[in-house]
């Protein structure tokens, strides 16, 4: 699920092939060098002439590596432009903006018609369509990486980097921050879900409207408002509109909470709300230890209902 050797994307599969070619070639070269050294170390052996030994140096140390490396370099450089073909910025197509923060991901899907869907800590993309990511950071340097789909790209404050990925196989893959970004760097992950294009369109359409779960569990919603969760979080269709923390509009339908930290269920939501920093160091969300078990259960139930 997080393996570059089990590719489900165009770039990942090309690079996996490159890897196997180089690994097999590398092992052959390594074995030859080691065997030659072992032979050279034998006492029971006639020394070869100095001229013959001297000839070995430019051939084995010069000509051979030049040949192999030139071929390898040509292969890799030929691959490069085709792996990440960046579209004309004006071209119509789905663009996903990702903003990294300690230790979560803000995600915005920008559709060609100008509408947007805001989400967090989960990436969804259609199979067979090239998706362009635009990446930046709100604080530290992070790196966006879904090994099964392709290589990584850094999120750097003050800069916007682009990455283009093409998923070839539907499934759920794990992505993770690859640049050390602070104390909970290890807990800055996300699920990436490649869906059939029709499913993806349906999913995106559903996400562009407020969740139908808003009306259920009204007590939980009241507590959410009373505790001013909206001063950091956004829930589409409510007063809560801040994007200082992760968007929660359809949080109930996400696979994980805490950016890949816990499987998403009511119990996990309760645990996270009570004391976020004990599960995830450096989390800026305050603890809600003053809430009663009943109150917690209500908030969690309401959030889980935001499908």
């Amino acid at each position, binding site marked *: *699920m*997080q*393996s*570059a*050797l089990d590719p489900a994307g165009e770039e990942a599969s*090309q*690079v996996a092939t*490159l890897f196997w070619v180089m690994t097999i070639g*590398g092992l052959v*070269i*390594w074995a030859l*060098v*080691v065997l030659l*050294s*072992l032979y*050279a*170390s034998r*006492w029971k052996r006639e*020394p*070869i*002439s*100095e001229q*013959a*030994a*001297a000839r*070995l*140096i*430019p051939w*084995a*140390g*010069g000509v051979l*590596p*030049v040949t192999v*490396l030139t071929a*390898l*370099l040509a292969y*890799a*450089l030929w*691959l*490069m432009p085709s792996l990440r073909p960046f579209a004309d910025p004006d071209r119509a197509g789905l663009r996903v903006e990702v903003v990294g923060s300690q230790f979560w991901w803000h995600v915005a899907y920008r559709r060609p018609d100008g509408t947007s869907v805001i989400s967090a800590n989960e990436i969804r993309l259609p199979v067979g369509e090239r998706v362009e990511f635009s*990446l930046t950071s709100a*604080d530290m*340097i992070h790196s966006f*990486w879904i*090994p099964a789909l*392709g*290589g*990584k*790209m*850094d999120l*750097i*404050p*003050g*800069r916007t980097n682009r990455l283009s990925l093409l998923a070839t196989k539907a499934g759920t893959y794990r992505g993770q921050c*690859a*640049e*050390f970004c602070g*104390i909970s760097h*290890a807990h800055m992950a996300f699920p990436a879900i490649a869906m059939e294009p029709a499913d993806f369109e349906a999913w995106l359409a559903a996400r562009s409207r407020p969740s139908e779960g808003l009306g259920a569990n009204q007590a939980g919603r009241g507590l959410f408002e009373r505790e001013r969760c909206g001063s950091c979080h956004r829930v589409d269709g409510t007063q809560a509109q801040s994007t200082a923390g992760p968007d929660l509009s359809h949080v109930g339908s996400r696979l994980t909470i805490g950016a890949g930290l816990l499987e998403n269920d009511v119990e996990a939501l309760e645990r996270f709300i009570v004391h976020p920093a004990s599960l995830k160091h*450096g989390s800026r969300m305050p603890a809600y230890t003053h809430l009663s078990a009943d109150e917690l259960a209500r908030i969690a139930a309401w959030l889980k209902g935001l499908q």
Partner: protein
Amino acid sequence: MSEVASQERDRKAEEEQLRAVWENPSGWRYWTSVNNYQIGLWYGATAFAFMLFAGLLALLVRAQLAVPENDLISADLYNQAYTLHGTVMMFLFAVPIFEAVAIFLLPPMLGAREMPFPRLGAFGFWSFLIGGVFVCGSIFFGAAPSTGWFMYPPLATSEQAGIGADIWLLGLSFIEVASLAAAVELIVGIMKCRAPGMRVNLMPLFAWYLLIVAGMIVFAFPPLIAGDLLFEMQRMFDWPFFDAARGGDPLLWQHLFWIFGHPEVYIIFLPAIALLAMIVPTFAGRPIVGYSWIVLAAVGTGFLSFGLWVHHMFATGLPQISLAFFSAASEAVAIPTAVQIFVFIATMLAGRVIFSTPMLFAMGGIAIFVMGGLTGVMVALAPFDWQAHDTYFIVAHLHYVLIGGMLFPVFAGLYYYYPLIDGKHMSDRVGRFAFWMMFTGFNITFFPMHLAGLRGMPRRVYTYPADIGWDWLNLVSTMGAVVLGIGMFAVVVDVTLHRRNKPRGEQNPWNAGTLEWISEPEENWGVRSIPRIESRYPLWDQKDLARAVRAGEWYLPDASEGRRETLVTSVLDAEPEQVLRVGGTAYVTIVSAALLGTVFVALTFKWWIVSGLAGVAFVAAVLWWLWTGTGEIPEQEEKHIGHGISLPLYASGVKSAGWWAMFITMTGDGTAFASLVFGYFFFWTIHSDFTGGLAGPGAFWPLAALGLFAAGWATTVGARELNRRGAVFAARALLVAGALLSAAGCGAALTGPWASGMDPTAHVYPAIVWILVIWAAVHGAVGIIMQVYCLARSLAGRLTPRHDMDLHNVALYWHFMLVTALVTFGVVGLFPEAL
């Protein structure tokens, strides 16, 4: 008969005198020794101790990662442990161990009595010890750096980085100064202190490699020092060099860090190859095959290593065309590396190999290193690196390179050269046991990491989830680390419990051909007399050489004036030029190092007054050191060194060792300055208006400063010329005028940005202008101290028209100062006007 007996007596007396001159002080004063054997041993033992400490940190890291979701140690301690592990291994072990080995081995290997600047070597050692203990000790207070050994901003410039970041920046800057000092000493030693006749093409390969590496240090460390300066200015005073919100850019640090960081890898690796280049011919029983090939390959590696740094930045979003260029350059470095490996294989093929313990470590190292080199070829390709970058694949790769290419050769060197320390061998049985434990333990630890990385495990994570295919790989790695640790421990036991009762072995137990095997562990003088060298392997080719050297039949067999002396020879042909008197036992080295250490430690805690006072005391100590220990006027002009040769005891200008030291130091200094100028233009390239709409320093004050500094330069050069012609009073007057003009220059330099109200915390443009101007002004101030120093020397009769080395060196400093002023004021004053 009686004539022979009296000759014998003379020899004995001569030897007694020489021994007395080179003797170490006793009791606690032993620690004031500056002799290369003592400094080399202390340096090496300290670096080794730091390596063991960093190794324990690695075991802590492995213990935490043994099982998923482990809570053995906290995330914070984990981050401190891995940051310190990398930092200590790189800065406190890998580079210093070679400076140690070089200081220990080079004098006898080159046929010299001593390094040219023994006190500088001692100063470097004490700085290293103080800085290293400070950096390592921080973890016991939970204050160690915790943002990775590469210290990327904005994380490392943020509040979250805590005092650990300052400890890293200041502690290591201090150690980098020590490394530069050692590099200066090594370059001058190798270029100017070789035995007569040891032309460059007869130099032992170890000396060649160390010359290349020391040269690389001079160009690679200064960019990091410049980066540290910018970094610390941001941390202490909020100058926004790396803050994107105020025009800065975090990528500037990555460029500066890796312009240092990549050559650093080869600075570590080449000296290890140098050890193999000494060991392999000995055990193959023949001279190296392809001497010119290996020297050319080493030089080529050195050059190429400066053109590869961007391969550490393939995922930062740089244009694909530059990725392609740096991919190609990174592949290219594999070629000289392959040449070096095949030189060893060719030498073995052309000889008959005795497979001793040092050879075991050497061959094991090569097997591991070649694997690391091949994965290096893989990650050099940008598309593969996009996957592998910042994963455990890289962790595996870099450990294969560094442990195979550096640690194993160091252990080979330890087993090979140990007899030079006390005349005894280390245990062969323990050595073989240690080798096999280390070799298998290493591979069990690091091989699975390739797979863990490709399965998506990023570096620097303190824990990982259970169900994503990393568990067993990590468990295996941790078990391997324990085996590797046992192997290392066996070597430690072998070194520390070294059999004292064992009899002294032969002088040249491996029957090696190079000159260092002449040196006797019981003596401090390097070589009893300095021979004329006619071969790359003098002990094999020059019959009777060892006996004649030890019998004192060669050059400079005595120390009749009771001074420590060595020969200075010409750079290319090693023709004798001068008898150099080197510094002896001194406290001033320890005092200076302690004071400079205080400056840096106090800065860390923002104790400004302590730091300022220590700074003043440090300058005073260095001036005292120079005044009493350098540029001394000898009691006679020339000295007989035997065989009818008489050499001067004093030299100034290009012929003196001090002039070369100044030249090399200022080359490094100029590189740091160039890095700051690079920063200025870097900001210009990334912004459409890099001034941020803010006022610049104008053209008037910068040009005034330039004019005044140019006058300061002209008066200094004029003073040197007048003094040489005997116009001592005119020279003194010019020095006074020069100091005044330069002081005015410093004032004008600072007035420019001051008068325009440039606020360095507002935006990166004023900040970079201020830093350039301050750099020039501080160098101007140092120039003034030098001018006044020469004036005082002249007045005290320590600088005369004939003995004018100080003025030559100061004029050389001012040449560099003139370039600094031209560039600084041209850039800050005229460049914005030209836009």
